[in-house]
């Protein structure tokens, strides 16, 4: 496409100035965090007794919540992508709700559901099960805030699978499950990986709902974002180190997300 000058030069310059300002605002805090942290602080932070348990809780719970979301969310995403019913459109809006509802509200809602005075709390307690302020609560909070990202990306990816492709696969001898795994999943794979990455990143960064519903107990429910919150009260430098680790993990995820869609399998080389 050839470049066309649609807008007058002064407008373009003002637009460029606005853009540079916003980019500066987006990047500057992270640059500040990196340049103001001496290597010695990084070493001290990594060796701090709060760091390893918080990182372990974060990785363990976020991977668990991602697995749960993938198992429960993939069939739902497939249905949302393939159904033309109005029920599917209503469910799609419901699934997106946790994105627009503040995490603190999700935390309160979870307490009202699973807390002692909550909807299901007394019944669960009679069975000897208590969910709030446990690792399970951390996972539940993460599933709720992060699953919409997976389901949305997954449904969009499945929409790229033309029904005719599955139909052809069936006439060629594939059972429904083989057609799904050999045709639908590979075609949707880049989108599924993007969804999983976004979902994991959101679960890893979850703070508000976890604090309210699961508490902030080191080694049990204290994830890295909660450790940052605790460290801020005692030692700002420690909070910065924890933040840098989380930012590094998130950046790696972002690079992965941007890279995955262009990862198309190259055709097999012809035999020589």
């Amino acid at each position, binding site marked *: 496409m050839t470049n066309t000058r649609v807008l007058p030069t002064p407008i373009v310059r003002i637009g460029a100035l606005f853009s540079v300002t916003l980019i500066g605002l987006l990047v500057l805090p992270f640059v500040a965090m990196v340049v103001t942290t001496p290597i010695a602080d990084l070493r001290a932070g990594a060796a701090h007794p709060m760091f390893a348990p918080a990182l372990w809780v974060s990785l363990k719970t976020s991977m668990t919540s991602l697995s749960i979301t993938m198992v429960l969310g993939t069939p739902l995403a497939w249905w949302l992508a393939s159904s033309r019913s109005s029920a599917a459109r209503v469910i799609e809006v419901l699934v997106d709700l946790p994105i627009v509802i503040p995490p603190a509200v999700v935390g309160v809602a979870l307490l009202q559901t699973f807390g002692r005075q909550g909807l299901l709390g007394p019944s669960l307690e009679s069975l000897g099960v208590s969910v709030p302020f446990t690792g399970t609560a951390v996972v539940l909070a993460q599933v709720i805030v992060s699953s919409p990202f997976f389901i949305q990306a997954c449904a969009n990816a499945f929409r790229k699978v033309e029904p*005719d492709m599955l*139909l*052809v*696969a069936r*006439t*060629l*001898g594939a059972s429904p499950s*083989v057609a799904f795994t050999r045709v639908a999943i590979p075609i949707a794979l880049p989108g599924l990986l993007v969804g999983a990455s976004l979902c994991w990143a959101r679960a890893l960064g979850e703070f508000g709902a976890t604090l309210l519903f699961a508490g902030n107990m080191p080694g049990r429910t204290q994830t890295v974002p909660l450790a940052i919150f605790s460290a801020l009260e005692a030692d700002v430098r420690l909070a910065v180190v924890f933040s840098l680790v989380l930012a590094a993990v998130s950046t790696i995820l972002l690079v992965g997300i941007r890279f995955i869609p262009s990862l198309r399998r190259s*055709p097999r080389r*012809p035999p020589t």
Partner: protein
Amino acid sequence: MTAWSASVTVSAGGFDLALSIEGDDTPVALIGPNGSGKTTALRAIAGAVAVSDARVEIGNRVLDCTEREIHVPMQDRGIGYVPQGYGLFPHLTVMENVEFGLTVGARRDSATSRTERVGAMLSRLGCESLAHRRVDRLSGGEQQRVALARALVMEPDMLLLDEPLAALDATRRRAVRLFLAEQLSAFGRPCILVTHDVRDVLALGATVVVLEEGAVSQTGSLEALRTSPASDFVREFVATD
């Protein structure tokens, strides 16, 4: 000579289709206005659409019989299907697309035999040089050949083609039509082809079945349709020659 018959009744979303056709190894061209149920008819015969009543037989095989509660699943019907747009698998190469049916289900084949059969089919359809290409980088005519190869390599008892030439430009269409006629002649088994073009009917020497508003309005040779067209649609169709 393989005799076949298909009677299907479909009721879905306010659309009703009642189709009863039969034939032998002579290709059948299914024609009709848009929305008359041609694609639904093909899919019903392939077993992909829920039918309220059906009886489909190819040779001495009964694929559907509502009365006797017989419904052979799609993967076991031995029916080849080439949809509009071809339905090629974009994540696989040409060779892997053609090979797909030989790697799944009851007709799974050994790797050596697979390579031989796929190679022979690609060669027969003039696609050997495309074997390792990605299907999204092929021209419309090449995609059509690959889709045909993928269906034919399974040696189906019947072939269903849904507007196989619709995605091609006018100049390519003539060459591909002749190629398709040769291939279907060599195939020598029952074939139903949906088309909007009377030249396809001529090239294939097909018997015509006219579908209008979900029902068969006329059946016969192109000559018979010309002599006494049953509707304005048929009159218009035969006049475009």
